[in-house]
């Protein structure tokens, strides 16, 4: 976790990098189809960056490149570079599994494992060989508290995660994603299946999480982007059209296509 360094008396917060994720002239192809065109942008550390744009604009494709999930698809290729904390994520020497440990992901539809709440959280640690009960207990409590879910499930840790409400399941997935203490949290429309109360809980949670994590969220909900994000990127037809502070994008966008999209004039 890229957060603090201890001194003799106090914790000093390290300087926040403005280019924690650096995307340089990045293009991406599904076989012969170019779906991302020469994207260049910098995503700041410990801030929330929102990707918006009409369906098919490439925002999710870019997000899924950050932890190389697109590797699983046949016939894909890319040009350009993506660097996370100065490390090229396409470096042939880089182990994809170690990259994915550093980058957690939460999906549109919550996808808890058909196991207990407890086992959902510790699953990846067990896979990595960690079976120390005290350590696992600590991770479970810390992760569930971090996902603002502890108080609601602390008495049901060993019951099936599938018995939770939709909002609780999504926060469980967030807890699972942060159990490994990643640097980055990717969220692909994390609230699209949630009611307004559950959505508000996840948004409140995100505000707390950004103290420790760099968050990138794909959302179709303009109001959600305005509420939660510090910076917003608008994509259209695979191109990055505009990227700026969120308050600027939603009050005085520079580009006509951004204006037309966020005001509901096309899309």
């Amino acid at each position, binding site marked *: 976790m890229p957060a603090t360094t201890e001194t003799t008396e106090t914790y000093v917060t390290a300087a926040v990098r403005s280019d924690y994720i650096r995307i340089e002239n990045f293009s991406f192809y599904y076989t012969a189809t170019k779906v991302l065109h020469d994207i260049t942008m910098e995503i700041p550390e410990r801030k929330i960056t929102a990707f918006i744009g009409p369906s098919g604009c490439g925002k999710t494709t870019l997000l899924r490149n950050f932890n190389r999930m697109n590797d699983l698809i046949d016939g894909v290729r890319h040009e350009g570079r993506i660097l996370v904390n100065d490390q090229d994520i396409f470096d042939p020497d880089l182990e994809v599994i170690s990259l994915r440990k550093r980058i957690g992901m939460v999906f549109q539809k919550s996808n808890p494992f058909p196991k207990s709440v407890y086992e959902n959280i510790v699953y990846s640690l067990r896979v990595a060989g960690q079976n120390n009960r005290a350590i696992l207990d600590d991770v479970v409590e810390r992760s569930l508290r971090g996902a603002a879910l502890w108080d609601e499930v602390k008495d049901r840790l060993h019951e099936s995660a599938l018995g939770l409400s939709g909002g609780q399941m999504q926060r469980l997935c967030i807890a699972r994603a942060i159990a490994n203490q990643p640097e980055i949290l990717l969220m692909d429309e994390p609230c699209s299946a949630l009611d307004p109360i559950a959505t508000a809980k996840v948004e409140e949670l995100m505000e707390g999480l950004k103290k420790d994590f760099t968050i990138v969220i794909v959302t179709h909900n303009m109001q959600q982007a305005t509420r939660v994000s510090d910076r917003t990127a608008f994509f259209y037809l695979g191109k990055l059209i505009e990227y700026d502070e969120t308050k600027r994008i939603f*009050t005085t966008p520079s580009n006509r296509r951004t204006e037309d999209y*966020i005001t509901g*004039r096309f899309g």
Partner: protein
Amino acid sequence: MSKHILGTFDEALGSLRNDVLTMGSLAERAVALASKSLFSRDTDSCRSVIADDEAIDELEKQVDRDGIEIIVRFQPLASDLRSVISAMKISGNLERVGDLAVGIARRTRKLNENTAIPEIPMLGEAFRIAQEMFRDSLRSFGGEDEALARTLKDRDEPLDQLCKNFDRVLTEAMVRNPGQVREYLSLAIITRNIERIGDHATNIAEDAVYAMSGRDIRHSDSGAGK
């Protein structure tokens, strides 16, 4: 600008804008009648200004209701958000201009009961400038003319100066004519209202610039700023 996918959104924004423009027309008429009542000693015009103010007040409430409804129903963003916020702010300024015209009319009605004050025509230039500023502020909003809107700020200073100069004239006249202090005080309040109409015209132009471009030119030295 192209239409929204949601036609009802365009209708709601159009209706809000029309209400503001109607308010503007009524307030412009009130200022013109107030001017006529003062310089032509036309007490009937005073009565019209006072009677017509209720329509402006009702429209102000209507604009607020419609603006809030648009925010709740459509969650406007970018230029839409700016135009809703600006419409609501401009309507507040228009309501104040209506009240200032009523204030002028009420004082004039009293003045017209007595002998004409010889200094009144000296206020003509200031009133003319205030009226022109107000008319241009409405034109800039209605015609989305940012260049015209940006001229207002610089035109307010000469108006303020004229009003200040006239205040000095009135002070000296009061010393010379102690029996007419009440009338001269009324004229001083009218002068103040004229100066305030110029201020509200400037505010309207600033809000129009914000609606058009998103630039906030308030509290800057001139309309050319930022």
